């Protein structure tokens, strides 16, 4: 390095050198100096930049009426002294950032670089260097640090797990919530592939998501529901979203993961409560109907006990009246069935519907139902006619429920026929045929038909045209058919009576 003019120990250069140097120095951003490594660094040369830097004129500094140490921030002067002295002792250059206080009392950050260039005769080091204002940079840095600290605080205090991964999916950072959620410390998870946070059964879904949204092409945040897996192999539901961030040219991804366990539990609780409410509601409706139902059951029970007592009396006659006994017992048995039917209907109401759909041979199912209905038909002296297509296909249904529905419709039909004073031997038809890739089942009676007036409340629970009816049959039948994906329909026949029908899906 070229020696500066006006050397302290009178080593001088040419005047042409001096001018060139002077020009160079004056144009430096900051202040060039030469000083002695003594307390407060007395300076015998400074460039003109000194005024802009600290507010003092060149002559004021060079005359040493003010010393550089006077400007140095008192908090930092010892540190500056230590660094400069130790560098000087070793003859090495030094670089240091510190604060100064300018003439008008403002604080400035400066950057200084200097080195020993020579020694005075008494051995004191002579230093030369440059001091530049870096206040703007420092402020920007501070702002950046604050922003980073802020972001960091947000990430660390977040309830959701915040994870950053590189473009290959390796985990780079893991916030506290992530640690708590997955059970890994941030340092032990670093470098692991983020897929390992997902349950193995969700690997494919996760990979698809990761591939798809690495470059989403829009600003929207896409999320995916997955099952996660923690360090202890506990599986839990999460929702995850991902954003790409650009970090010095390399793409990285921030993943936000929320543990849905509590939410799912809450949802389940709400669902359970709703189910319970619906059940309670049904029970309440039943409670209101309790008197009516008790009446329904008491009627046949009353009749049963009377028939039983009559039977006993006919038997005790001398001689026993067997014909009348037989009559009484037969009627007694009918009433027992009637009571059973009431209870059955009630159970249908209270039991949560559990549909067990299976593949069923429809022809066989319908023949069985006909046989079951036959008992009731015989009591009324009616005939159930089965009209089935040849080779009926298998259907998909809950056979018990479908049986309930058809029996109910047969019973309704026969009751309607009875009310319509149909002669003994009248027919009720149960038929099945293929209809648009489905099996259509119809029950055709010759009863009263459905009056306009009753049409409106046909499917309403507890509405009945029958004095003894609870009015639940059709409403339950309709829900069963609906649960099978079908619809219970009806129409009045041209020559009297009504037809009820529904379709079942083929297996």
């Amino acid at each position, binding site marked *: 390095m070229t020696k500066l003019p006006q050397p302290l120990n009178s080593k001088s250069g040419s005047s042409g050198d001096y001018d060139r140097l002077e020009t160079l120095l004056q144009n430096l951003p900051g202040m060039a100096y030469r000083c002695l490594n003594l307390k407060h660094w007395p300076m015998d040369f400074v460039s003109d930049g000194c005024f802009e830097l600290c507010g003092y004129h060149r002559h004021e500094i060079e005359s040493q009426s003010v010393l550089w140490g006077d400007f140095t921030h008192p908090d930092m002067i010892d540190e500056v002294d230590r660094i400069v002295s130790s560098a000087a002792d070793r003859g090495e250059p030094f670089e240091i950032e510190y604060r100064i206080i300018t003439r008008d009392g403002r604080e400035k950050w400066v950057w200084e670089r200097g080195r020993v260039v020579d020694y005075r005769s008494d051995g004191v080091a002579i230093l030369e260097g440059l001091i530049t204002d870096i206040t703007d940079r420092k402020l920007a840095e501070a702002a950046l640090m604050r922003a980073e600290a802020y972001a960091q605080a947000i990430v660390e205090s977040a309830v959701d797990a915040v994870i950053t991964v590189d473009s290959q999916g390796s985990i780079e950072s893991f916030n506290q919530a992530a640690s708590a959620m997955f059970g890994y410390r941030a340092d032990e998870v670093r470098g692991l592939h983020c897929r390992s946070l997902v349950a193995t059964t969700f690997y494919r879904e996760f990979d698809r998501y990761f591939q798809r949204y690495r470059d989403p092409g829009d600003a929207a945040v896409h999320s995916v529901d997955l099952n996660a897996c923690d360090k202890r192999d506990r599986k839990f539901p999460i929702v995850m979203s991902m954003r790409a961030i650009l970090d010095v040219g390399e793409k990285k991804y921030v993943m936000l993961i929320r543990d849905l366990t509590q939410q799912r539990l809450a949802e389940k609780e709400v669902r359970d409560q709703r189910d319970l409410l619906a059940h309670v509601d049904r029970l309440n409706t039943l409670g209101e109907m309790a*008197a009516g139902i*008790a009446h329904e059951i008491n*009627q*046949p029970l*009353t009749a049963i*006990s009377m028939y039983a007592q*009559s039977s006993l009396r006919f038997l005790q006659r001398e001689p026993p009246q067997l014909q009348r006994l037989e009559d009484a017992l037969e*009627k007694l048995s009918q009433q027992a069935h009637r009571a059973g039917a009431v209870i059955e209907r009630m159970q249908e109401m209270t039991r949560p519907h559990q549909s067990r759909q299976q593949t069923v041979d429809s022809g066989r199912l319908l023949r069985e139902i006909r046989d079951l209905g036959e008992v009731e038909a015989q009591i009324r002296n009616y005939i159930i006619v089965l009209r089935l297509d040849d080779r009926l296909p298998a259907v998909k249904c809950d056979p018990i429920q479908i049986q309930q529905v058809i029996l109910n419709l047969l019973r309704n039909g026969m009751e309607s026929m009875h009310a319509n004073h149909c002669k003994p031997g009248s027919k009720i038809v149960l038929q099945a045929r293929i209809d648009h890739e489905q099996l259509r089942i119809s029950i055709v009676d010759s009863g009263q038909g459905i009056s306009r007036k009753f049409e409106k409340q046909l499917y309403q629970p507890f509405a009945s045209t029958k*004095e003894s009816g609870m009015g639940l049959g059709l409403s339950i039948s309709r829900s069963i058919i609906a649960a099978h994906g079908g619809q219970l329909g009806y129409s009045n026949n041209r020559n009297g009576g009504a037809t009820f029908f529904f379709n079942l899906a083929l297996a």
Partner: protein
Amino acid sequence: MTTDDPSQLIFVIDDDEAVRDSMGMLLDSADLPHRCFASADEFLAHHDASQRGCLVLDIRMPGTTGLELQQRLAETGSCLPIIFMTGHGDVPMAVEAMRRGAFDFLRKPVNETDFLERVRDALDRESGSWHQRLDRERVRQRIATLTEREHEVFQLVAEGIANKAIASELGISERTVEVHRAQVMKKLGAKTLAQLVRIHLRSE
């Protein structure tokens, strides 16, 4: 015992066919004559005041209810005892029925022995009150044959007033009182004063 009075009938009124039929059969088995009706209105259509017996009535019926029928019969002065059949939860109605003078109520399902027993009790009661009414009616008819003067004498004699006092009260001779009194005794079929007083009491 008047249970076997052939003019007594048990009227069973219940909207439930099976209940009706079984009660009929039970009454049959006990040789109790009866008639069944499906509704209060059907019963009323066949009813006249001369009918005797008792009612077995379902308290809960569509149309005219059991309580309403009880009210209607009371208004016509019917003396037919009513046994109500009640279901579960009908206690307030049963209480009301009893308050209005029902003979009894039986909870469904009914104990048949109780049922037959209560039916017989009801028939007894009806029989008793029927004979009482018949008796009162006969007495009234006889009293109606008395002349005005004889009626006056009958009232005073029955109150225990002596002939002399009656004579002065009515402003007639004691002898005339005696003639009237003999006539009253003969018309009312009383042999002694005590019998006459009893007839007077029964006519009230």
